[in-house]
């Protein structure tokens, strides 16, 4: 009956309210009966308060007209399925792991940029709690950190289905903790996470500035480590560089193994595309994979997005995925690439990154703080554009092509030996190609 009356009520409100107001706030509400009460269910407190302030009186008017008393109509925040496992003593139900079964080690494409992280995640999954603890995977967005996190979790869980493996995004940890504090269930919250055999938390940079969460996480962390339970974390940068994270927590992040995931190289990008296409039963032409992989360098999610768009457009236009078709569908993306990757823009981006002037890059000055960024800018220009060595030399204050060649070799060499330079280069490539 409540459902039927709510439908009638919606019909009135739809006539009375602006369609956006109605569609955004009112229509998605759920209704349920509890004894003789009609309860509207909102997804969060904000929506509840908004409805209570702007629309509840009117809703009560209508329900009154339909034979209810005004006091019988309420709005509350809908109960979420509890993420917290049942308390001890009750029958054990299948555990909510939060793991996505689509991500496994088997469908993770490896290359030079991620093989170390892949190997570390595999080792940890094979012997959780005993090899590297915690394992921290860090790198830019869309490079496969979350894939490895789920992959490790799924591996552990498959080997031992009774193991309590918990995957969650840092934001969920924060919001569950806030809810537990409000509902006075913080002890259950602590018990839930401290009893995990493997705790996998994504994007810990979002703990930044959240002191109470960090405090709780610190104790969870210690409890898990003490009892040799595995922790795997991901972060968008080197974890010790995240601002707003307490020093004691940052230092603990470094106790196990911290591994970077770099943007994939060309061959890996092609392999990823062909692999993803195969998963979807699409025979992707090599030329198309090369076209996308050549232009989209910054992250795997972009590659997937390009492929998703190609497949959808091909399906709905009935046209095969050829190189010209790909150029047409992805024109916006390819155009951006061409717009960003010019000698001038590379110089400007590198100068801004190292906080020097473009004129310094073009000058004759040879001090280290100028020479190294200049070499970086030359190497990036060679790598990302089609310009020849003499053209690049000319654009950098009329230098000889051998100077450019030397710069390219020097930067390649430093990338193998100096983590900082490697990271600078990865960040700059991302800035220029994102």
């Amino acid at each position, binding site marked *: 009956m409540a459902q039927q009356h709510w439908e009638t009520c919606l019909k*009135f409100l*739809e*006539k*009375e*309210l*602006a*369609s*956006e*107001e109605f*569609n*955004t706030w009112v*229509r*998605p509400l*759920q209704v349920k009966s509890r004894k003789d009460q009609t309860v509207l269910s909102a*997804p*969060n*407190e*904000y*929506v509840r308060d*908004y409805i209570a302030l702007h*629309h509840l*009186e*009117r809703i009560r*008017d*209508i329900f009154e*007209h339909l034979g209810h008393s005004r006091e019988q109509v309420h709005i509350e*925040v*809908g109960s*979420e399925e509890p993420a917290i496992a049942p308390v001890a003593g009750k029958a054990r139900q299948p555990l909510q792991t*939060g793991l*996505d079964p689509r991500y496994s080690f088997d469908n993770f494409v490896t290359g030079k940029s991620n093989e170390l992280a892949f190997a570390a995640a595999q080792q940890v999954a094979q012997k959780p709690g005993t090899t590297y603890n915690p394992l921290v995977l860090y790198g*830019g*967005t*869309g490079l496969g950190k979350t894939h490895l996190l789920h992959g490790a979790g799924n591996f552990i869980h498959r080997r031992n289905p009774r193991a309590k493996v918990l995957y969650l*995004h840092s*934001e*969920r940890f924060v*919001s569950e903790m806030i809810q537990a504090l409000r509902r006075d269930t913080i002890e259950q919250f602590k018990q839930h996470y401290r009893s995990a055999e493997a705790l996998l938390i994504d*994007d810990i940079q*979002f703990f930044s500035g959240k002191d109470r969460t960090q405090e709780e996480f610190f104790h969870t962390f210690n409890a898990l480590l003490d009892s040799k339970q595995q922790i795997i974390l991901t972060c*968008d940068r080197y974890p010790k560089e995240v601002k707003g994270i307490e020093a004691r927590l940052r230092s603990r992040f470094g106790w196990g193994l911290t591994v970077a995931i770099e943007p994939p190289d060309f061959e890996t990008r092609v392999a990823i595309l062909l692999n993803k296409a195969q998963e979807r039963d699409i025979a992707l032409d090599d030329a198309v994979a090369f076209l996308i992989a050549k232009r989209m360098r910054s*992250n795997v*999610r*972009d590659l*997937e*997005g390009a492929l*998703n*768009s190609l*497949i*959808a*457009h091909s*399906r*709905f*236009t009935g046209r095969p995925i050829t190189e010209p078709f790909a150029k047409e569908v992805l024109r*916006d*993306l390819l*155009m*951006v690439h061409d717009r960003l990757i010019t000698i001038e823009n590379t110089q400007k981006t590198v100068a801004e990154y190292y906080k020097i002037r473009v004129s310094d890059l073009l000058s004759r000055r040879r001090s280290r703080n100028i020479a190294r960024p200049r070499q970086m800018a030359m190497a990036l220009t060679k790598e990302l554009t089609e310009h020849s060595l003499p053209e690049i030399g000319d654009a950098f204050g009329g230098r000889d092509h051998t100077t450019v060649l030397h710069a390219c070799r020097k930067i390649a060499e430093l990338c193998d030996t100096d983590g900082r330079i490697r990271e600078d280069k990865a960040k700059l490539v*991302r800035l220029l190609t*994102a």
Partner: protein
Amino acid sequence: MSLFSPQIPLQLHPRRPDRFEDYIPGPNLAAAAAVRDLCSQPGASLFVSGPASTGKTHLLNALCTETRGDGRMAWYIGLKRMDKSARAGLKGLKGLVCFDDLHAVAGDRDWEEALFHCFNEVLASEGQVAVASQQPLSAIDFALPDLASRMAWGVRVQLEPLPEADRLLVLRARAKSLDFELPEEVEQFLLRRISRDLGSLLGALEKLHRGALAGKRRVTVPLAREVLVAELGGEGAAQAD
């Protein structure tokens, strides 16, 4: 308060919920089909871009209508009209979540963070996210690279402006959804005299409709001249048609 005294009479007559069947695709037939396909893709996302008046809002609302028709939850969230406090309203959403006018909040780190978390939460629960913006993804200056990369994950659809013949069809369809016939001479008057973009035309149409209802008059060219003084640049009444 009586049942029949509307609280906020912003609309004299509600429009039917937007549906895919009522979308006039013009050059966007494949694009509209790609948007509709989101309904059958749990855990997927979509990014729709296109200039004003290409039907982005219609398509998002049509997605909502179709999803609700299947008995699932759907949220349409017009970011242009949301104030900062509404960020808290993005928590716990499930089902289909449509964000319109992304350009209105892009670059605002707090908003982007709220959208990012919402995106993760919805997709993790096998829901779907559809986002519309006037600018293509590549032209948006995101403050949070994580959000940019989430947005780039799904299918991207770019809508093209409608040619004049299709704009006329849209105008007629809108008149029909408001339950009135648009006489041919009024159509021609609107097309010739109002700014050619579809948004202005539809705005003029709705104003004309309100004028007709309020004055209990038929929709005619003289009524259009009277009601649309502002749209005609103040010279509508004086200038011979």
